[in-house]
Structures are given as structure tokens and as C-alpha cells.
């Protein structure tokens, strides 16, 4: 059999984004980022065993602007993944499949992940 040489109709290139599809891919990306965050945490623990100077080097890196940006990013990706995961659990129970409900729950996930990140850092910095 000769392979069908007809073109494939465009897909990702033309398909409109919905809240649901956007959050679905963000959930996956956040999951990958969380995996990287775990590696950084292991790295942090490893610096303990390499002695004080190594640990301080790590602290300097993390306290730089870029380091702080990364840490705040990790906080957000963790909280987003958790809230989005809870949304998935409700779906698994069979609730929240109407378009309107799914859109509202999606927006709630984004908002609560942002709020959690802000509160976490305000709390951690001793501001509240």
C-alpha cells in the first residue's frame, strides 16, 4: 500500500484556545516545572553535606533577583498544580463538566494559585 500523500489539515496552528484547553496545557507545564523544582530542592539539601561555603554560595544564587524570580515561579507552579489537581479530582467524581462551571472553576484555579503565591511570600517575609 502506498502511503497517503495528501496534506494534513491544520490543527494547533488554527484552533482557538478555550479556558479549559489553556489550563490543561498549563497544568502539564506546571507539572514539569515542579519536577525541576524538586531537583533544585535536592541540590539545596546536597549543599548541606558539602559544607558551609557551598551552602552560602547557594544562598547567594537564590537571593539574587533571578533566583528570587525562580523561587516565586516555583511557588506559583506548585500551587497552580495543586488547585488544578483538585479541579481534576472533582471531574473524576463526575462534577463540573458543564461549560460554564468548567470556566468558572478554571478562573478560580488561576486566582487562588496567584493569591496563594502572594500570601505565601508575604507570610515568609514576615510582612503578615
Amino acid at each position, binding site marked *: 500500500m502506498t502511503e497517503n500523500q495528501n496534506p494534513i*489539515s491544520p490543527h494547533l496552528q488554527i484552533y482557538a484556545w478555550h479556558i479549559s484547553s489553556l489550563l490543561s496545557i498549563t497544568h502539564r507545564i506546571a507539572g514539569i516545572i515542579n519536577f525541576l523544582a524538586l531537583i533544585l530542592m535536592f541540590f539545596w539539601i546536597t549543599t548541606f553535606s558539602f559544607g558551609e561555603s557551598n551552602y552560602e554560595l547557594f544562598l547567594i544564587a537564590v537571593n539574587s533577583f533571578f533566583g528570587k524570580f525562580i523561587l516565586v515561579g516555583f511557588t506559583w507552579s506548585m500551587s497552580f498544580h495543586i488547585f488544578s489537581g483538585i479541579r481534576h479530582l472533582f471531574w473524576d467524581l463526575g462534577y463540573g463538566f458543564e461549560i460554564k462551571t468548567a470556566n468558572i472553576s478554571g478562573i478560580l484555579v488561576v486566582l487562588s494559585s496567584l493569591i496563594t503565591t502572594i500570601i505565601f511570600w508575604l507570610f515568609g517575609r514576615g510582612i503578615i
Partner: protein
Amino acid sequence: MVQFNLPKNSKILKGNYFKDKNESQNIKKINVYRWDPDKKENPKIDTFEVDIKKCGNKVLDILNKIKNEIDPSLTYRRSCAHGVCGSCAMNVNGINTLSCMKSHKDIKGDINIYPLPHLKVIKDLVADLSTLYRQYESIEPWLKTKEKKSKNFEINQSKKDRKKLDGLYECIMCACCSTSCPSYWWNGEKYLGPAVLLQAYRWIIDSRDDERKERLKTVADKLKLYGCHTIMNCTNSCPKGLNPAKAISSIKKMLATN
């Protein structure tokens, strides 16, 4: 391996521009995907200027007008024009829909019309759905009963059991949902897709069917069923307002609780 980009022979080029000859005031630009199997060329986007005041309300009316008055070679499937047959499913401004049900008055600016996504194109807006039909066949979409019972008796169904089929039997298999699903794009050969799974659920939940267990067993496959990641493009696109995502979740739930 998942290919996010279009292969070389599928890259879309700029096509012809059909200017309105009557210099009308109510012009809408319609960009339509074209591919001719007889020419060895890449697909292209042709732009048609259409007088929107002299045209019916639906996107299908525009296509008919183009075919009748501007370019008779434009190819697309259509039949009933009332959202019953499911022939004219296509991608209008980024969302799969039946062009006979989509009003062009809802669309501001240009209208972009493509065939259903991630399928082999046959010509212009006609794409090859044979994989989907094969998958539909694989779920055996007919009533199966143990022999004795069906021989002499009518199989009755209570109102309550009949109600379970609402939101499922209305499906016309237009394939808007399946071809809107990224999971179906990347795993179309293995993953059954929302349309076929909604149909599978329609037979699983039918009180008159005797093979629920076997049916559940057939779909309970890693990719056949669990290719669904609740992206919900299916429910967002269904022109009949059905909810394939919920039907798939119901199958998953039945498998988890039985």
C-alpha cells in the same frame, strides 16, 4: 512522536484573491482553505469578497454563494442545511462547528474556514474521516441482547432508563468534537476520541443492552479511553450542545466503581 508543526507538503501558502465585481458596500472577506489533489501543489488560502447583504445568515450560505457565483470548483460536504445530517462540519474561525448552524452575523471581521483539523485532506474542505468510522464500528453500535429474551418479547424501557439516553442519542457523528481534541490529534489511531466514546457510552448505559460488561471491557484500554485528559475542546465545540467530556468521565467512573 508527536508532530506539532505541519509536514512540508501541508504548509499553507497564500492563494488567489477574488475581488467583488459589483463594488458593493457590504463586503466580508472569506478566507477558505483550498487543496486540489490533481495539482501537485501545497494547500493555499483563497480570499473571496462576498456581499453579505445578498447572502443567507449562515456560513454555509456564504459557501453556497461562493460556489454558485464565484468559484464552482470549491468543494465541501453539505446536505440537510439544518444541523441534522452533520455533513458540513468544518473549522470556522478556530472552532469546529456545523457551517449550516453557525451564523456569520456572530463573527466580526474576516471569516476563516478550514477543514476539520488534523485529518488527511481529500479536497478543499473535505477531509478523510475513515479512521473515525472504523473506530465507530469497533464499539459495535447496535443493541445486543441474549437470544432468548429478544425472540418473543418487545424489550420495554422505563421512562427513567430512557432518560439516561438524553444528551447521547442526539449525537449526529459530525466529528466536530473528535477533531477538536488535541489528544485525538496526537493519538488518533489508538485513542477512540470523544465522538466514538460518547457513542460507546450511549450503548453502555442503555438498559435494554445485555453486554454492558463486555462493552466496558473493550473500551477500558490505556489509550482507547484514558487518552482523554479533560481538555474539554469537545464539549466546547459540539454544535448540538452535547457533553462528550462528561460521557467519557461517566465511563471512567463506571470502570472505577464496578
